[in-house]
């Protein structure tokens, strides 16, 4: 059984909450621990409360954690906002200069963070790093690992700042080692600090159930064998690995940093990034680039996807491959840009007038995002149609450790090249059994044609003939069917012979996996199924999974149950809907509770 621990850092934006969390996360990852981070954003430009949560484990960490084992609070507001989310008997580390906690029954570590930073170090902004040092000391993380991270990341442009930060880190470590050399309720002494804080999630939730010593874990693992990436970083890197050479986009939360990373890196790979005047132009430019023979993509969030509707359908009709990442946020309209939701599904599937087939792929984790964006490019290329990759705020911005990808193993699909010597006349939209017609690229002799969004015959000439329209509609859907034959990946987990099934899509898989594991441990015969493609759906895999079930639970972060509706429309599957629509990601506990309820009522 896996062991893990959730550390939450809370403060005012500007106090360095995020930086502190990132240092902790990266150092832990390098030590070979598995990491999953989660953060919230202040709603206002002028700041507000921020939290950063790091969950560490000896096995892959699949969700952000239901409840904090350790809280690091920088100020009174942070303490009050977050104390309710800390487990009974949890650990509270706090700035004793800033707040005086009531006795909630936590294990208390008060440190004069402000004093240390200001008086001792003369570096008031370093409070967060002092705190990281203290936290690491209490958790038993080796000082050297933290030092390297702080040195590398917190003074890239200014060596003096790097030195100050390292000093702050050491001061934090020192303070703990000097002042907490006692045996407290945790059984921690200066000699055994750390090493015991990974908690056994399954067998018991009290701090008494201690896990694998960290040192063991660190020695066993290959510290450099994993990466710490956000979902958006995985998308950007995966796109590079897939051979993407053109990105056009318009900034929008929470998709923007895909463009930002590619703006720095794509030129080095011989590609181009164009920041366009809006999302319509972004998808237009990507379609143009793809028409001209280059793998192209854009990334946006809901409002941008809405604006792209007409262009998605152009790509579908003119049969131009293009990849569109939708990092969903809480809608509708401008909604809550920094909150998560899975409410764009219907638009991804059906958005835009008329019937324009497109592939929709839903990565379920950071690692999956890296590989699925490659799949997206491959399917786009092979089936010459738009592929939408369904991300959401929670997946885009969480970071997770992933095994380092073996880039040599990544398979890239090349374009089907028309044989232009043979053909007397090149038919760009030739009717074939697969629906796929070989695509000539500008500069190829003999491949002249006009791609068009008007209905057209095999040559691409506009035609309003009833028979032509019928054939071409069917041709375009035939490609979708073929894609469904080729790509039928599902993630199945849990009991081999379940009577309760959990089906969902995208970012909730991690929480669902944890919930299924918990429920199985309680003797419930439950299994989960997450299809990788939402269009075309893998019919056989889904229906055969559902067939044996007594109850099917569909998990999704929206109000109307869009995926549940899809399953019913497609396969007549009735389901119990488990929906969350408050802008926050599902927890394992949410899903576990539902499974238990269904099992109990069974």
């Amino acid at each position: 059984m896996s062991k893990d621990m959730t550390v939450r850092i809370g403060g005012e934006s500007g106090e360095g909450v995020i930086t502190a969390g990132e240092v902790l996360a990266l150092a832990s990852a390098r030590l070979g621990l598995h990491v999953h981070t989660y953060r919230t954003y202040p709603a206002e430009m002028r700041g507000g409360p921020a939290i950063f949560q790091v969950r560490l484990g000896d096995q892959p960490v699949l969700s952000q954690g239901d409840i904090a084992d350790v809280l690091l609070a920088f100020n009174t507001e942070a303490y009050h906002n977050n104390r309710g989310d800390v487990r009974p008997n949890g650990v509270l580390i706090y700035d004793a200069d800033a707040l005086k906690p009531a006795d909630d029954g936590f294990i208390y570590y008060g440190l004069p963070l402000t004093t240390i930073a200001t008086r001792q170090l003369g570096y008031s902004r370093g409070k967060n790093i002092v705190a990281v040092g203290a936290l690491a000391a209490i958790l038993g993380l080796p000082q050297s690992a933290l030092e390297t991270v702080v040195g590398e990341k917190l003074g890239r442009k200014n060596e003096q700042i790097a030195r100050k930060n390292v000093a702050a880190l050491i001061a934090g470590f020192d303070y703990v080692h000097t002042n907490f050399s006692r045996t407290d309720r945790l059984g921690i002494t200066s000699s055994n600090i750390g090493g015991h804080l990974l908690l056994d999630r399954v067998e018991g939730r009290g701090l008494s159930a201690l896990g694998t010593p960290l040192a063991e874990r660190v020695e066993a693992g290959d510290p450099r064998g994993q990466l710490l990436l956000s979902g958006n970083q995985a998308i950007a890197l995966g796109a590079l690995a897939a051979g993407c050479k053109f990105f056009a986009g318009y900034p929008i939360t929470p998709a923007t940093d895909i463009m930002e990373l590619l703006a720095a890196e794509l030129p080095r790979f011989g590609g181009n990034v164009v920041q366009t005047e809006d999302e319509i132009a972004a998808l237009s430019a990507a379609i143009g680039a793809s028409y001209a023979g280059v793998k192209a993509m854009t990334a946006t969030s809901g409002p941008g996807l809405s604006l792209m509707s007409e262009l998605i359908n152009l790509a579908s009709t003119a049969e131009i491959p293009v990849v569109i990442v939708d990092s969903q946020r809480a809608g509708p309209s401008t909604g809550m840009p920094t909150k998560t939701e899975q409410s764009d599904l219907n638009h991804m599937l059906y958005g835009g007038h008329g019937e324009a087939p497109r592939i929709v792929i839903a990565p379920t984790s950071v690692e999956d995002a890296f590989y699925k964006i490659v799949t997206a490019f491959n399917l786009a290329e092979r089936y010459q149609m738009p592929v939408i990759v369904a991300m959401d705020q929670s997946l885009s911005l969480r970071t997770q450790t992933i095994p380092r990808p073996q880039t040599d193993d990544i398979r890239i699909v090349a374009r089907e090249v028309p044989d232009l010597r043979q053909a007397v006349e090149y038919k760009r939209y030739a009717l074939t059994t697969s629906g796929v017609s070989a695509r000539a690229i500008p500069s190829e002799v003999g491949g002249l044609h006009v791609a068009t969004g008007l209905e057209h015959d095999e040559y691409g000439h506009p035609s309003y003939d009833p028979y032509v329209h019928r054939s071409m509609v069917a041709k375009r859907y035939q490609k979708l069917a073929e894609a469904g034959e080729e790509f039928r990946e599902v993630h199945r987990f849990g009991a081999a012979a379940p009577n309760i099934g959990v089906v969902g899509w995208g970012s909730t898989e991690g929480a669902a996996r944890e919930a299924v594991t918990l429920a199985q441990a309680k003797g419930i015969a439950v299994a989960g199924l997450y299809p990788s493609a939402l269009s075309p759906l893998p019919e056989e895999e889904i229906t055969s999974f559902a067939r044996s079930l007594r109850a099917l639970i569909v998990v999704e972060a929206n109000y109307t149950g869009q995926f549940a509706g899809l399953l019913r429309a497609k396969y007549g599957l009735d389901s119990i809907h488990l929906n969350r629509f408050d802008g926050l990601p599902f927890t394992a506990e949410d899903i576990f509770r539902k499974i238990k309820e269904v099992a109990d009522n069974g």
Partner: protein
Amino acid sequence: MAEAEMVTRRSPLEYKSDLKPVWCAGCGAYGALASLYRALANIEVRPENLVIVSGIGCTSRLPGFVKAYGFHTVHGRSLPIATGVKVANPALTVLAVGGDGDGLAIGGGHFPHAARRNVDITYVMLDNSVYGQTKGQSSPTSLPDAETKTTPYGAVESALNPMAMALAYDVSFIAQGYVGNAQQLTDIIQQAMRHKGFSFVHALSPCVTFNDSYQYLQSRVFDIPQDHDVHDKIKAFQLALITDRLPLGVFYVDNRPTFEEELEAVRQKALSRGKASIDSLLDHFA
């Protein structure tokens, strides 16, 4: 020598596709197409290296009638799509064509940005001051008081001034032609295509069916005086503000790096920070 240079080695007929134009007899678009064939022949572009991108409208049907690669897209999006084409493969010769509604109404938001990027494409706008395809509604260049199907009591908006707009957008080559002056229009299109950077050709083109402006235009066009300094933006703006008559010829030329050149420079800068490989990039996240 001069003579020899004028010999057309490719024939305009080489650019004629098998598709018969769908336009009404007498439509200005025929004239524009003829001038385009000649210009293409003169600059001797190979059909397979030419891409013509259009939006939607009568005039946007043009790519179908040219033997070249074409992309007949959706209403108003020819410029961003053409931008993608050109950036993806700078070796291609890229033309964007379309109507006044396509380019100044629904697509009007893209024009300034194509200009400020100075992407090396030529944009030929066939302006008939009406929506021909949808059968006669007012367009952004319809004159005030124009009676159209949507302005039965006369249009009340003032007409947009595409030449002034192009100047304000800092388009790097700006010219106005008239389909009735075939030779000059050919020449202008040629110059525009030879220009490095974003070039705009405003081609006055009557819609015989819904806005038969041949007489109106014929009586107002005049050639820009020989001594006009094409690098003087203020002078060009003065020309653009003439409203009772219609100056034909090149208004303005500016030579500055193209978008593709700038992007190439970015690439060099980026590469100077070290050669790229996915694996070394992944190292940053380890």
